[in-house]
């Protein structure tokens, strides 16, 4: 009898935390909210923690830093722990500063990089609702919305099978999870996020 009670309790706990599919009305409302928010977003600045999960490791590899974004297409990821490394997407180029060693990659000619860049910008804003490029599924969990974007392009899905983006009730992105075909993933959790705080162009230097 006690066993049954335990199972019942566990079942209720799992139901309480399980994610459920959204109705089409709910999905439409979320999409509208995120798109409206993305349209008025001129800048984003946020702290982030990145967790690299590989199934054979004891612990995820944790790195952290700051992200800044400015419309239309300036993005800088600055890793500060446990090493200093930054990537700046600017004018179709990728500028890297690896503990002081600077290099750049021309991404204009690389379709995959270009696609990745657009995806990064859109995922930071949350606006990836492009049905031609992704199969999209909507879920809700507690007060959060969870959207699965699976790339339709076969060449791209070889690298990333799906993006799982978590939004808070305001329609802000709080977590991005990129899942590889092997099921290993990279999870980025945002915190101290500010929208439309003035960001000087000078901050977007390599």
């Amino acid at each position, binding site marked *: 009898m006690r066993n049954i009670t335990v199972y019942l309790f566990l079942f209720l706990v799992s139901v309480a935390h399980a994610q459920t599919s959204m109705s089409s009305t709910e999905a439409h409302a979320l999409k509208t909210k995120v798109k409206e928010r993305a349209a008025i977003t001129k800048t984003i600045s946020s702290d982030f923690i*990145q967790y690299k999960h590989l199934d054979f490791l*004891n612990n995820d590899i944790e790195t952290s830093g700051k992200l800044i974004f400015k419309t239309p297409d300036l993005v800088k*990821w600055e890793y500060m722990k*446990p090493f200093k*490394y930054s990537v700046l997407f600017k004018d179709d180029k990728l500028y*890297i500063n*690896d503990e002081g060693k600077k*290099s750049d990659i021309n991404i204009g000619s690389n379709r995959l990089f270009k696609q990745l860049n657009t995806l990064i910008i859109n995922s930071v804003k949350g606006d990836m609702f492009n049905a031609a490029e992704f199969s999209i599924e909507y879920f809700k969990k507690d007060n959060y919305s969870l959207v699965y974007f699976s790339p339709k392009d076969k060449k791209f899905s070889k690298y990333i099978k799906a993006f799982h983006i978590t939004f808070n009730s305001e329609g802000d992105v709080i977590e991005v999870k990129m899942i590889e075909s*092997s099921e290993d993933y*990279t999870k980025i959790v945002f915190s101290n996020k500010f929208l439309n705080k003035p960001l000087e162009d000078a901050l977007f230097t390599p």
Partner: protein
Amino acid sequence: MRYLLLSFCLFFLACGSFPKKQHFKIENTSKTSIHNPYFSNKTIDYIYKANIDVYKKSFSGILIIKKIDNQHHRIVFTTEMGNKLFDFSFIKGEFNVNFIIDEMNKSILINILKKDFKVLITEQLKINDTYTLDKTNVFESEIDKKKHFFFIANNQLNKIIRIRNGKEKVVFLFTQINDTIANNIQILHYNIKLNIKLKSI
């Protein structure tokens, strides 16, 4: 005639074995094997910030080495942003490429990486000859039928050299050693422009 003799002498000196050229002193020891401890603990995730320079190309990222079981290692290289660049495994001496990006998918490069990583993860080595050089013990062994010299000072493995035709081909340097973790590792190739730098994070 004197010049001819001199050139003969120089010729033989140049062709002399690696230990001779390096002035190693031969040593008699009862030791039959040595142990490379650096990637031998199953409970540790070995994580390094890595730079791989190949000719004019440079790849930076995170190198992960994990001993999954006895005779089973997994070696994964990702970018700082988390994208996998390659994923290799060694299972009972057999090498597998689980994944590699097109840009790095060149058999020459894969072969070199395979040989280098095999040296890093091979734990038990049979000693063929023993030498000393100052306060360092030098052990000659073989990995894949290639001569390797292991330099051990103060009970720490600090260098491995792969030899071909009596010359240094690849040098592995282990520095900032903390117990059984080498916090800095450099793999320097003398016959091609390929260098790997690893810094524990």
